[in-house]
């Protein structure tokens, strides 16, 4: 078990290195292929009409005058052992893990990430609770009565949930429940400050996100349950004389939900890397919003930071899912 985790961790670190290398490559090499020079890159961070000396100075300050592999090495070094930044009159020590300074607004990336993570975490976890409850319940009831009125309407709603874009549902929910009816607030408050306010402002984003996901989970649960309830071991459970509810929950659901663990782990991993659209629509200052802004401003260090964080969550959740799977399904062996 321990050696398994160690091996997986090593593999994860290699994977993350590859991810950052690819991000670096996309950021530097692709524009280069399109004919963009480091000068032009640097110029984006200077005011109007820069002199060649300005460009050279900025390039040197951002390290853009170095070959790409040196920049990459510096970046990795910063994460492992920290880095020192020249602020002008003084230098500042950026402790490991140091993700560098934003090119655009000169803010240190790591505190930005850690500051934003609770927002994204709140959003993802809250929404996950809702969609698991809603999606699984709807899926189970649908599966037990396939073709019934409930099944048809639930799956219809699910289809709509998947098809409706967040831009629509989110905005609509905001307009109706926040602006018109003024039930919900719009300014995020940390849980530690005021839990009820926290829940109040996050309720709409949770619901909007959960609508999307519960639709998917309802369909997954439904098909999983339909399949499981035809399994031989369900017949055995019934042959024992178990009550039908116990058959469904203890025997059916347990087996049907296991594959969902994988999907759920991946979804949470991806969401922790930033629920881009939801955060944008609801003005939540999470990881996803940071990603969007960094990309639109060509700001490499935050892009790298977000990419790395997102990749970390995906890799991490993958590992968690595998470990969890091994405890849920005794047939699975970790090797």
């Amino acid at each position, binding site marked *: 078990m321990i050696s398994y985790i160690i091996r997986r961790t090593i593999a994860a670190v290699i994977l993350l290195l590859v991810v950052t290398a690819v991000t670096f490559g996309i950021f530097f090499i692709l524009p280069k292929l399109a004919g963009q020079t480091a000068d032009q890159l640097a110029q984006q961070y200077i005011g109007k009409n820069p002199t060649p000396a300005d460009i050279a100075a900025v390039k040197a300050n951002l390290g853009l005058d170095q070959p790409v592999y040196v920049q990459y090495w510096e970046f990795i070094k910063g994460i492992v052992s920290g880095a020192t930044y020249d602020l002008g009159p003084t230098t500042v020590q950026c402790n490991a893990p140091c993700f560098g300074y934003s090119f655009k607004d000169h803010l240190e990336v790591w505190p930005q990430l850690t500051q934003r993570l609770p927002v994204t975490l709140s959003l993802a976890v809250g929404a996950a609770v809702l969609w698991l409850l809603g999606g699984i319940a709807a899926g189970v009831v649908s599966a037990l009565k396939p073709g019934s009125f409930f099944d048809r309407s639930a799956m219809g709603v699910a289809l709509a949930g998947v098809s409706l874009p967040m831009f629509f549902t989110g905005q609509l929910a905001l307009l109706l429940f926040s602006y018109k009816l003024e039930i919900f607030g719009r300014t995020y408050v940390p849980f530690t400050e005021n839990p009820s306010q926290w829940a109040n402002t996050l309720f709409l984003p949770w619901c909007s996100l959960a609508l999307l996901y519960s639709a998917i989970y309802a369909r997954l649960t439904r098909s999983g349950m339909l399949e499981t*309830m035809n*399994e031989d*071991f369900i017949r*055995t459970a019934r*042959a024992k*004389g178990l009550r039908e509810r116990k058959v469904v929950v203890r*025997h059916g659901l*347990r087996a049907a939900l296991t594959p969902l663990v994988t999907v759920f782990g991946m979804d949470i991993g991806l969401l922790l890397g930033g629920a881009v659209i939801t955060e944008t629509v609801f003005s939540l200052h999470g990881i996803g919003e940071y990603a969007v802004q960094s990309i639109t401003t060509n700001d490499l260090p935050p892009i790298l930071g977000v990419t790395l964080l997102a990749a970390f969550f995906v890799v991490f959740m993958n590992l968690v899912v595998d470990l969890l799977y091994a405890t849920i*399904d005794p*047939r699975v062996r970790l090797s």
Partner: protein
Amino acid sequence: MTELSKTGAAVGEPVRSGDAPDAFLEVRDLKVHFPTDDGLVKSVDGLSFQLEKGKTLGIVGESGSGKSVTSLAIMGLHRLGARGKNVRMSGEIWLDGKELVSASPDEVRRLRGREMAMIFQDPLSAMHPYYTVGNQIVEAYRVHHDVDKKTARRRAVELLDRVGIPEPHKRVNAYPHEFSGGMRQRAMIAMALVNNPELLIADEPTTALDVTVQAQILDLIRDLQKEFGSAVIIITHDLGVVAEIADDILVMYGGRCVERGPVDDIFYQPQHPYTWGLLGSMPRIDREQTDRLIPVKGQPPSLINVPSGCAFNPRCPYADVPKDNVTRTERPELREVGGRHFTACHLSQEDRTRIWNEEIAPKL
């Protein structure tokens, strides 16, 4: 088409209908039909038999002959699950004085596992992969016994020991996939017997096992039957399986009984051409390698469009022996041909005896 109702008062039934029988288990004119988009599937279409305690009945037939459906019908498992809403059952199933077809699902549920238990064909898929064997036996016990987990667990270990699982107190914590095929089936039997059922139904209990293990499992069932004194139904496609264990044999074809009788009669004086075919396809140790296993030629009948007349006629080599094309126009009645030996065949007694003696028996 005959109008059916769940209460079991089927049209055109004998006068006896409705009375509690003397036999421990009596099935009367059982019909199990499934309406589908393609038509009505008549899986079991008028089946009757009796079984006493301490006796073993072998139900033999090809897949799709209705033998498994019969067993599930007795257990009341058809009415459960998503497809349960669609089943149409009629007839009567009397178990120890209680009629099950008309009983409420909950009444049947309470009998299930306690008075009647079942062993399934593939113990790997029939046991839940996520729970330990012990856990599953404990569960089966506690459904019908209000005892704490510890007591139930002792009972499980006891049963595992009884069915011949070595180190039962350890193996009780193992998962089904950690057992060998034979051990798994033993565990399955332990699970079925945990409540001392009076009726045990074994649906192809040895099919998924290799030959040496098959014999062990059959021996185990036989021993346990003696010990517990229960009635046993063994369902199989292989006459060989029931040759030594069954008291009576019932041969099913196309959802109906084509021959029924004491085991010796079925083996030594079989009356129905389909039974002959089954005997011919039975593997036997004392037979030459070269000419063994002559399967019954042709396909099992459609259960939606059952052939008119005798359902076996398209595959029967003797279909043209009786006059007036009667095999294709008239359904043969189940007729007694000897003491407790019945068959449903248009062939005359003389023809059957002649064909058996001259054509079939020498080749077996």
